[in-house]
């Protein structure tokens, strides 16, 4: 287990998610601590993306609980929109808004949700763009960016609401190989700044280097978890070993 014994940011207990008759997540329990970088690995169809999407309720939860900062976000009484502001999300296919320029993509939520004035949001937006190395692209529309640039803008957009948790759903899977590095670099910097991160990825190198904990999922269960060293160098479960043999 991770040494990190800080505050529990996300508490997941007995999470179940079904799509119709198909049960994708079968009884998942886990605690994610403040400042942890949790990397979720697993074969496709193992439920890892669905798990991630349950953490901000992009998927309706069939059973169990997801508690963020002590508040049960599965409860109907919880204002999910408020909680989503604290949880940034980055998608495999970027999902930038193509009809808005880069800066507007970033300032939309803070301005629209009255978290900042337009000027504040633009100032913050430029800071974030600088952080991801794209300040000269502020007035460009997303279709004119490369994949790696799009994903860095998407990260900046997710950071605009000052979230304290970031979810990454295969952030480099849709990128050309030469662009993977620039996106991982931004993520590493975020991790170094102490952001709580949950990352679904196939980048084993990133997991080894940055993860404080690695979770291996298969068939809707958490099969094995531990430090990168434990999971990659001394896996215990046959399914983990089998998977690692295929990808390493």
């Amino acid at each position, binding site marked *: 287990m991770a040494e990190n014994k800080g505050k529990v940011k996300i508490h997941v207990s007995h999470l179940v998610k079904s799509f119709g008759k198909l049960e994708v997540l079968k009884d998942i329990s886990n605690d994610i601590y403040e400042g942890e970088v949790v990397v979720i690995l697993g074969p496709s169809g193992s439920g890892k993306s669905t798990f991630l999407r349950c953490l901000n309720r992009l998927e309706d939860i069939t059973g169990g609980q997801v508690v963020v900062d002590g508040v049960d976000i599965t409860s109907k009484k919880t204002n999910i929109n408020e909680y989503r502001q604290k949880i940034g999300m980055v*998608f495999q296919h970027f999902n930038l808004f193509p009809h808005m320029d880069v800066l507007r993509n970033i300032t939309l939520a803070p301005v629209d949700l009255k978290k900042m004035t337009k000027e504040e949001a633009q100032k913050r937006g430029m800071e974030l763009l600088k952080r991801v190395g794209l300040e000269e692209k502020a007035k460009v529309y997303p279709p004119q960016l490369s994949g790696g640039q799009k994903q860095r803008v998407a990260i900046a957009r997710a950071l605009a609401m000052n979230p304290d948790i970031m979810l990454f759903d295969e952030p480099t899977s849709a990128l050309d190989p030469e662009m993977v590095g620039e996106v991982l670099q931004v993520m590493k910097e975020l991790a170094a700044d102490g952001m709580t991160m949950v990352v679904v990825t196939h980048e084993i190198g990133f997991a080894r280097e940055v993860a404080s904990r690695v979770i291996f999922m298969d068939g809707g269960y958490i099969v094995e978890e531990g430090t990168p060293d434990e999971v990659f160098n001394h896996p215990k479960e046959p399914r983990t070993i089998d998977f690692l043999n295929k990808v390493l």
Partner: protein
Amino acid sequence: MVKIITNYGPLLLRAMQQTLLLAMSGLFFACIIGMIFGLLSVLKNRVCNLIATIFVDVIRGVPMIVLAYFIYLGVPAGINSLLEKGGFTLSALQAGTACLALNCGAYMAEIIRAGIQSVDKGQMEAARSLGLPYWRAMVRVVLPQAIRTMIPSIVNQFIITLKDTSILSVIGFPELVNTAKNVVAKTFMSLQTWAIVAVMYLIVITILSKIAKMLERRLNRGRE
């Protein structure tokens, strides 16, 4: 031909004005109806979806001429017998507007539904993940993109509706076809009169499609 134009030209022009008036008022309400039922059909709510489906199917399944008679003659008759006193009537303009609005509204609802569904669902997810409520995300992110893809179909539907006003000649609204019938009855010059009417429709519709093309190009400028 010249005789018709000099004698009846102003009358036919006024009739064209009436046609446009009817089309515009019909289209105005059709947009509202289309928006309402289009949105009902994309909501994640079975009852709303069902209401939208029934509306669209019923309107699509009834010929417009039947709808026109139903609204113009049937509805007032029904209301009068219900209230057990006479006197309630709808003007041809009111009935015609309602008829066009319902008919065109149903097709608009389908166009709007398809337009919204054509927007990648990742767009809605990204907006929601930032904390935007559903309607905010719809208005700020999904609809602006949907409208771009909807414009050609909407223009097409406007043109169809403009032509459909001719059906409303049957309820006596003094639009172009109705007026032309009267002109033919007086002059017995079918060929010339109907040729003139055809050209009048053609001109108006061509102008409208050109404007629409321009609009479409302007909206797409600066993208991709």
